[in-house]
């Protein structure tokens, strides 16, 4: 996977480059818009990370320009701005994603994987999800583990479906709030944890192998194997 990181802050550049390389990406770093343009011309990238606050130009203009030049790869926008620009919303609707600084590395990686997955023709016809012995019937909205039916509330079903779709990948609390509840909030309290705790009680309650794992300070993961 080839990735172009457009970021001017040296410290962030360094740790991101390291973390992304460790995660298996082949990373090119552009410190400004000009460099990003020449990188994008010279190579073909699978995904781009673009910081909005570049020294020579606005990140959005850069994305527009790259799109105009025929770059189709998904873009993860990094923003230090507090309020989300309408144009960012527009890009988000167009399939790209954004993260506000500071962010959890795990969240960044999770969102990147999401974007890449979204870019691959995705089988929307799926009516069943299966992770180990956990099975979800998306039409009947029913879940079972090891053949035993699970009594889930509609909300819990949606949450479990989200975890299953991202099985093996870390999902953060803010991702869960964003994608399951449709809210970009950061509660001071443990609202998401309690939902997970309840869900875990039903899914992993009397099982030998727990599926839902907590990664403290980061989020949750549904084990694939």
């Amino acid at each position, binding site marked *: 996977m080839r990735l172009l990181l457009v970021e001017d802050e040296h410290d*962030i550049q360094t740790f991101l480059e390291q973390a992304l390389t*460790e995660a298996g990406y082949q990373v090119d770093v552009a410190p400004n818009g000009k460099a990003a343009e020449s990188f994008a011309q010279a190579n073909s990238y699978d995904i781009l990370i673009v910081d909005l606050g570049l020294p020579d130009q606005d990140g959005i203009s850069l994305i527009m320009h790259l799109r105009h030049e025929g770059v189709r790869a998904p873009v993860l926008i990094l923003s230090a701005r*507090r309020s989300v620009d309408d144009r960012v919303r527009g890009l988000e609707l167009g399939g790209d994603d954004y993260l506000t*600084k*500071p962010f959890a590395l795990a969240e960044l990686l999770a969102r990147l994987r999401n974007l890449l997955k979204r870019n691959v023709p995705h089988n929307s016809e799926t009516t069943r999800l299966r992770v180990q012995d956990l099975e979800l019937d998306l039409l009947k909205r029913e879940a079972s583990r090891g053949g035993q039916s699970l009594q889930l509330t509609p909300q819990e079903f949606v949450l479990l479906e989200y975890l299953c779709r991202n099985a093996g990948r870390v999902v953060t609390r803010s991702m869960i*709030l964003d994608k399951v509840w449709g809210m970009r909030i950061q509660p*001071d309290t443990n609202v998401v944890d309690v939902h997970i705790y309840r869900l875990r009680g039903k899914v992993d309650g009397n099982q030998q192998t727990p599926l839902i794992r907590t990664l*403290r*300070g980061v989020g949750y993961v549904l084990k694939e194997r």
Partner: protein
Amino acid sequence: MSSRSDKSVMHSAAWRISLWATLAFTCGTMIVFVFIDRFVANDIQRRSDAWLSGEVEVLGDVAERTPDDALYNRVVGEVAELASREVPNKAPSQDDDNDSVFFLQIGKDGALKLWVGSGDGQAQLEAIRAHTLIIERPSSIRVRGIAIPFRVAAIAMKDGGRVYLGLSERDEQRVLRNLRLRFFLLWLSLVLLGFAIVFFTTRRTLSHVRGINEAASRIGQMDLKTRVPTTQRNDEISQLAVTLNRMLDRIESTVIQLHTITDSLAHDLRSPLTAIRGKLESSIAGTRDDQQLETIVSAIEELDRLTDFLNKSLDVAEAKADALRLTPTSIDLDALLGSMVALYEPSMSERGLRIRFERRGPVRIFGDEGLIHRMIANLFDNELRHLSSGCTVTVYLDQSAGGASLALLDDGAGFDPEVKASLFTERIKGKESTGHGLGLAFVGAVVRAHSGTIAATNAESGGAQINITLPLTSAEELSHQVVMTS
């Protein structure tokens, strides 16, 4: 629809101004017309009196000089007859039937000597006898059987007799009547024309004011980019619009400045925070030691709290300057609250709290969904932190003409009396609170940014109560939104 617009026209300032202006104009023109009428009536009377005085003198002279023989009656009668044909103000189409003038001569004994006119003159004689006529000064006399009075002049003769010349006031009255009718029609059309002119000009003028008002209230609610409409004319209203726009330019530039400051502050703090967080996270991967891992994770958590504090402080600072950035859409507050209650319910019940949502159906408001989400989250977080186990939180949502009203009531200990008065001020928190005292300040800020109201009280039962009202989506905003999204 038309009756509604009629009603609104009759309630408009333009209508009131035109009514008062027309009333003043009506009174003014009426006074002028009354004066003209008096003047014209006096002038007509003066002219007919002059004619009467002249003619009676001539007739008296003729009667004096004519020998009192058999031809006397014929001679004097003919002269009187001729005189009556030169009556002033006589209607041209009137026939020769001479009932508007009479000539009457009485002898020394007061008996009728000569009569020229229609009828036998007895009624006129009677009327004249009833009056003490001042010689040579014409006056009005009513004659029995004739509706219209006569103007009569008299002259004394040397033989002790008298000559009277009477002129019916009929022609005079007709002239005056015609005049008044014309006056009245002229006056009526002037008044109507005046009303129409005043009404349309004031309405036109005030429509600019209305435009300015509508634009200004839109600006007050959400966006600072719009300007009030200006006109080409350099009158007071266009000056007002220009002044308002200049004021808005200044406010906008101040707000932009504030945004720039908060943005750069946020940026300057966020970049190092991002770097620190990233480094801490990277170091987790290489750590096997549990205690070290614990330290790193708690550092990350502290960092996240710091970020949250930074975000909320900047939001409250912006909101205090009425510069909170909104991206408003039409939101169903009922659905939004429903999903937030569902989100918080497990946490509440884990803490031994109950949450109830009393709803009455959809309530649409025009607001920033993200901010409203964060506002409700703050309120619920607050309850989670401060309520003791066993308490119930009740959320009421209703709508009235005043807007959407949202109430949050609990049966806990209520607000600390020391902080109650300044709950929505930042850094104010109860003694036992572990938060940074920005939660309710932020809630207050979001409500104000949406032109709503917020109040916190302790309920009679002792619990804390927060009442919020938010303006409902108006049809205009809905259509505006449809236009924007389509």
